[in-house]
């Protein structure tokens, strides 16, 4: 029975070691600024279209479903409040993180995994470069910076989608929707909505890097690492959400 859990524990231990070294490298040179900017472009700008698209449609879907339920009670005026709270607290951070995990945890794992199986990681070490400093830390910094920004954009676009439904189908004015939505939010909601993407960013980047670094077994191994990175980071997004939400429950 214990044997079953040992690989999981070892993987978690590896994750902690990788995280410790990646964070320590933030404060130690050399700093690969170019790599950080490239990763910000790849992860942030590259994910922007899909985040905007999914944010917009999730706002529309939320407006339709909530609108229908609220109309039953004649409370359709509360649509802005419900859409904004749901998006800012939960759906914006989680949906954005899942999209970025699917797009970038896989990309990071496959890129680093390919480098591993073609001896590029060993070559990097042999040439005097710390692969964690060069590959992991820039991805960590870039994801921690861009994921909260992508989440803010997704929140805003989602609320815009909800506003379209409220205006078009529920006869709610623009100003009523935005006023209700804005006033419903308290600082705790904003804090919760921003701390989550920050933590998700750490998970997505480090899990992608960890499975990339652990890759073995040629191209098949790269495929396996890619899949594992997406699955594990997606699971952790929900686990973290489940742990954070109770902290803000009151």
């Amino acid at each position, binding site marked *: 029975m214990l044997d079953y859990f040992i690989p999981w524990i070892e993987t978690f231990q590896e994750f902690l070691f990788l995280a410790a070294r990646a964070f320590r490298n933030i404060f130690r040179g050399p700093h*690969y600024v170019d790599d950080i900017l490239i990763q910000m472009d790849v992860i942030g700008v590259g994910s922007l279209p899909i985040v905007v698209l999914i944010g917009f449609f999730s706002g529309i879907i939320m407006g339709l479903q909530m609108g229908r339920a609220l109309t039953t009670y004649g409370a359709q005026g509360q649509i802005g409040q419900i859409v904004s709270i749901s998006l800012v607290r939960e759906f914006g951070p989680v949906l954005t993180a899942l999209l970025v995990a699917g797009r970038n945890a896989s990309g990071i794992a496959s890129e680093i995994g390919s480098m591993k199986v*073609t*001896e590029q990681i*060993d070559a990097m*070490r042999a040439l*005097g470069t710390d692969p964690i400093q060069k590959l992991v830390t820039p991805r960590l910094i870039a994801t921690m910076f861009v994921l909260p920004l992508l989440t803010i954009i997704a929140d805003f676009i989602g609320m815009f989608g909800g506003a379209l439904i409220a205006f078009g189908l529920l006869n709610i004015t623009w100003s009523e929707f935005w006023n209700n939505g804005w006033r419903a939010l308290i600082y705790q909601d904003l804090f919760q909505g921003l701390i989550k993407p920050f933590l998700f960013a750490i998970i997505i980047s480090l899990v992608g890097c960890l499975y990339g670094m652990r890759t073995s077994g040629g191209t098949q191994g790269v495929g396996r690492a890619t899949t594992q990175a997406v699955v594990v980071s997606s699971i952790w997004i929900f686990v973290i959400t489940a742990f954070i939400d109770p902290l803000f429950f009151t």
Partner: protein
Amino acid sequence: MASAATSEVLRFDDVNLHFDGTPALDHVSFAMNSGETRVVFGAAGAGKTVLLKTALGLVRPDAGHITLFGEDITRLKESAMYGLRSKVGILFQEGGLFDSLTIAENVAYPLVNQQARGNGRGPEWEEEVDAKVQESLNFVELGNTLEKYPSELSGGMRRRVGIARAIVTGPPLVLYDSPTAGLDPITANLIVHLLIKERDTQGIAAILVTHRYQDGHLMANFRYNPDSGRIEPAREAEGPGGVRTKFFVMNEGRLVFQGSEAELRASQDPYVRKFVK
């Protein structure tokens, strides 16, 4: 006491390494001085690549001691290894070129990295790097591939780029992991000629892992003539070949043979004889 000209560059003292209970290195001991060459033969999985990676501290031994340029690296921290590694060039079996960088960027990588680790950048720094990259690529006769990517080159050309990258900083020790494996005889001979030329013009120490007896024979018996620019047989007295080239044969992690080419040819060990053709 060894003189500066023949100082010890690498020493293995009773080094052991196991992977999942299987010995990768089994009580390996040897020493080599500057300017010397070791040619390593062995079947696949005999521990040749592990030997090179252990020498460079990429893999840590379970027991024994490894001394690189006089410093015991057995338990040296990874961060402390980077300075030492910059004195060693390595050509990986698969080339180990960075596929997202151009050939020029690949060859420049060790130089750029040394600068990034704190040597500072002077105003003429980029010109110096460009000149060294061009010189190194000219040495392997690939001076016109600067802007290409590794995927655009043939396997033999990628190995030659790997050699250019290994030697661009002028390291006193270079490790070549199967530089001729899977190549046609013409390209393979060209690569060995380049290794001989590098050895004789720069006076470097080298470990050459290979499956081809011919590679070791050429290293031991031929020299580069700077006047003619050609490889030619070395006379006994003028070496650098024979006296400074020794042969290793590995089997299941053990060094089962160490000696000169003549001793290798005279060996009656059936495993060792498989590598003499």
